[in-house]
């Protein structure tokens, strides 16, 4: 197995022999068994307990994480299938660890938010949610490409059921559209994985494959194969059309999981695979991705501006926000990538919170029309406060989480191209427009008379599930350092894989590359961290 030696040396295992990641991965599945066996009335409580337990056992990943290490930590590796060697191998670095925590953090909230809104087939609902949790954590933690793909695809079935069984009136259409879009995107991913296996030294080990180098022509093909899968998931313009349908029809918990975790799988894929494995192709096709990202930012914002349906508005705002994430990733510098990762977390928190708010109001009025839900400032003052906080966070108000992320992304983008940066900044202004317009209509606008009696303010459960989100909004907004510290080392390594490739392109240091790719004018790319303090 070529390259195995170098891989072993960069693994850090501060687990004290406890396989934390496996525990985090298995717990929700044990929860599935418990829910299955339990009485219907108890199932909610059991699922909630299990998901909170999962959150607790995932905390050591944060506490014991060594910020100085760029490599994988909490690594576990066992042979799964021997011919060809496919491993059950898990590990997290500074890029994936926050995403694992985001998943374990949001799942209990999803169960809470569905406490009363989901009445039918409670058990199946909870099982779907818990299976989703395992699958998403698996995607972020897998270090074997086949294992990654298994989790990546497994997640489709519970999500399909979540949308299709508990969704809105047009749920069947939305569910199958979601399913087929993402499945079609994954076709080329699987072939790319198999090609990598044979080209990268007959291994599925993601780290070993990252270390191998590939001919530029092959890199281009693989890049677009990856792109097909990841761009659909993000979703990037023009592959976003499944998202509004899925979001609108999905139950609240489904929307939260979809927006907060699922979309991140796409951007995570770019960061984990496209950039480090295919550095030359990533550089070569950066302009395409940047263009699509800017289009997504502006187009998503304009679409959001025009929506009368609450969920659709937030769905299009997701398209816009995820545009920032891909923009930051392909700025290919430390600020851009760190901003992108931070923005992935932020979008998870803020958009998740907004969908939660929509779910809360929908439970009362059974309408997603903005005009039906006006005048909440008087009728539901507590709710209005929360809603405004999350709305402003979505706009990127300084002091709140999104500001830090968007700022870093913009700094990174300006370093890549001033024009792109300017256009992307336009997106922030548009975000202010559609969000404030929404706040104006919903919070301060006239109340619809027939809805007024239904508008009761937050109860204890609802209050309780929004508070942790507010805490995170301000914590990341005011003191993002702990989170950024976690990423630094890993992000630098991604950048390093880029810079070696640039060196190869400029100098040809014998890594076997031929210079078929058009090299970017490289002077503007490498701004190392420290140039701009967050």
């Amino acid at each position, binding site marked *: 197995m070529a390259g195995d030696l170098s891989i072993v040396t960069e693994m850090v295992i501060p687990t004290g022999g406890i396989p934390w990641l496996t525990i985090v991965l298995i717990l929700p599945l044990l929860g599935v068994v418990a829910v299955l066996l339990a009485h219907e009335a108890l199932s909610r409580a059991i699922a909630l307990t299990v998901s909170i337990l999962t959150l607790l056992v995932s905390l050591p990943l944060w506490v014991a994480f060594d910020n100085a290490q760029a490599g994988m930590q909490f690594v576990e590796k066992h042979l*799964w*299938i*021997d*011919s*060809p060697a496919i491993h059950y191998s898990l590990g997290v670095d500074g890029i994936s660890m926050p995403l694992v925590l985001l998943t374990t953090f949001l799942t209990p909230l999803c169960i809470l938010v569905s406490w009363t809104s989901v009445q039918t*087939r409670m058990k*199946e609902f909870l099982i779907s949610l818990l299976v989703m949790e395992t699958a998403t954590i698996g995607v972020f933690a897998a270090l074997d490409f*086949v294992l990654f*793909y*298994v989790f990546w*695809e*497994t997640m*489709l*079935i519970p999500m*399909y*059921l979540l949308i*299709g*069984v508990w969704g809105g009136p047009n*749920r*069947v259409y939305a*569910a*199958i559209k979601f*399913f*087929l879009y993402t*499945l*079609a995107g994954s*076709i*080329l991913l*699987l*072939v790319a994985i*198999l*090609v990598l*296996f*044979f080209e990268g030294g007959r291994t599925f080990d993601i780290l070993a494959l990252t270390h191998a180098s590939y001919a530029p022509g092959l890199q281009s093909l693989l890049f677009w194969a990856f792109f097909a899968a990841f761009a659909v998931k993000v979703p990037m313009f023009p592959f976003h059309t499944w998202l509004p349908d899925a979001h609108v029809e999905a139950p609240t918990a489904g929307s939260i999981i979809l927006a907060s975790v699922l979309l991140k799988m796409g951007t995570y894929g770019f960061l984990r695979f496209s950039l480090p494995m295919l550095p030359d192709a990533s550089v070569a096709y950066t302009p395409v991705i940047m263009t699509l990202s800017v289009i997504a930012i502006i187009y998503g914002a304009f679409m959001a501006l025009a929506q009368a349906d609450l969920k659709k508005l937030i769905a299009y705002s997701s398209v816009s926000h995820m545009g920032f994430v891909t923009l930051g990733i392909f700025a290919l510098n430390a600020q851009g990538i760190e901003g992108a990762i931070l923005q992935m977390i932020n979008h998870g928190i803020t958009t998740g919170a907004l969908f939660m708010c929509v779910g809360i109001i929908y439970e009362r009025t059974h309408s997603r029309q903005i005009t039906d839900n006006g005048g909440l400032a008087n009728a539901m003052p507590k709710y209005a406060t929360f809603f405004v906080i999350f709305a402003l966070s979505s706009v990127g108000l300084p002091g709140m989480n999104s500001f830090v992320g968007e700022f870093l992304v913009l700094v990174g983008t300006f370093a890549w191209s001033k024009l792109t940066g300017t256009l992307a900044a336009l997106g922030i202004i548009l975000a202010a427009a559609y969000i404030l317009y929404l706040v104006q209509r919903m919070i301060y606008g006239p109340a619809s008379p027939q809805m007024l009696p239904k508008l009761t303010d937050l109860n204890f459960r609802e209050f309780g599930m929004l508070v942790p989100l507010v805490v995170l909004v301000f914590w990341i907004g005011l003191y993002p350092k702990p989170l950024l510290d976690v990423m630094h080392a890993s992000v630098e390594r991604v950048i390093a894989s880029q810079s070696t490739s640039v060196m190869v392109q400029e100098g040809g240091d014998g890594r076997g590359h031929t210079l078929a790719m058009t090299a970017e004018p490289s002077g503007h790319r490498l701004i190392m961290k420290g140039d701009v303090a967050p």
Partner: protein
Amino acid sequence: MTLPLADLVLILPELLIVGMACLILVLDPITPAHKKDLLAWMSLGILVVGSVVTVSGFGERVMAFSDLVVVDSYAVFWKMLLYLVSGLTILLSMGYLKEEKIQLAEYYAFVLLALAGMMVMVSGADLLTIYLGIELMSITLYIMAGFKRFELRSIESSAKYFVLGAFSSGILLYGISIIFGVTGSTRLVEIAAVVNGRGIDDPLVFIALMLLIVGFGFKVAAVPFHMWTPDVYEGAPTSVTAFMAVASKAASFAAFLRVLLEAFGGIKPDWNLLILVICIITVALGNLVAIVQTNVKRMLAYSSIAHAGYALIGVVVAGWAGIEGAVSSQGVSSLMLYLAIYSFMTIGAFSMVAILRKGGLEGEEIEDFTGLAKRHKGGAFLMLVFMVSLAGIPPTAGFIGKLYLFMAAVNAGLAWLAIIGLIFAAISAFFYLRIVMVMYMREPSSEQELHTRLVLSPQVSFVLACAVAGVVLLGIFPGPLVSVADLSSLSLK
């Protein structure tokens, strides 16, 4: 001429099974109606005995009856699969025949006779031996397809199967006779020796090869020789359909591959392009036509055509020009793995169709599954697992099967074939998920609620448990089966 004892010992499992089939036919008239199940249990018993005898031959390669029969690991692998499928078919049939009021004990004798034919096919080292096996299997299946003899559809199925089957057997036999004319032998080894020398220069070899491919193409239901499949599958009793879709397909593939590689392995370029074309149109047509079906059995029939297309990818890889040794046998082993996995999920899916009853009839329309998740959570979930596996989505076995097939294809430099296969796999998700959709996302009408139900017997529950265990366990721990398939594929010379 005396029969050497050692040769007879080698085909002991076949002898045992044929013997039991005859015994059942004799016992049938003197067995009281309420004790017919006893005969089914006896046939199951002989399967167990046979499998124990067969599995002891794994790892060796022995020829018998002056090279007419070969027992090697490859044959043992297929025979074990056939025992399993036959056993599950018998268990499934016990309840099903009662429900359909066609409980005749000769049914079990027919299953055993068909099994014996299939075993001869996979062990045949001579074209005529293989042909005999095919005929024993086919003639038995013609009868079984018409087992619901008071139902027009079943008789039509039987007649159609018989006419087309006999026709294709004739084509096969014609091919064999030309081969004999050219090479002076029907032994695979001797054919190989002559054919390797002459190659395509002799147009007769080419013609014979085409005829053989047409004949086998019919048996495995590859496009364009698939026309019989939907009608026969729809009309035949569901337990028989399951048996045909799995066992006869597996046995035909086994013999097909052995003939292609052992007799014509030296002239791969002459046949691999044709197989490639058949493979692609089979995958495409099977999946596309399945989309518009409203009858589950017809849908599964087209799905079985599509899966034959996927399995053909293994044949393509095994026969791809310039591909030798390890890569070639990877094609063989991925095909073996795929058909083993296919068996579990297809048996499972057909069992679900067999136990879904609508009034006194079989519930075989897709609509009959409406809202099943409300009334039979477990049953609906099993069907979900089978459908997801057929669509090739992890963590089920169907994904593992496709993974290995496509890996073999990519290794042979056929990445584009893997892409085509995966595109159609994604398309297939549409119609497999439609069943999931009607089960989980549609409300049943009051009439449906009243009349459709699952009829579970302990035997059927066991069959379903086996099928779902196979689909899930092979999806998560495919290692042992992969190793066995790898090992067995090497014995194919």
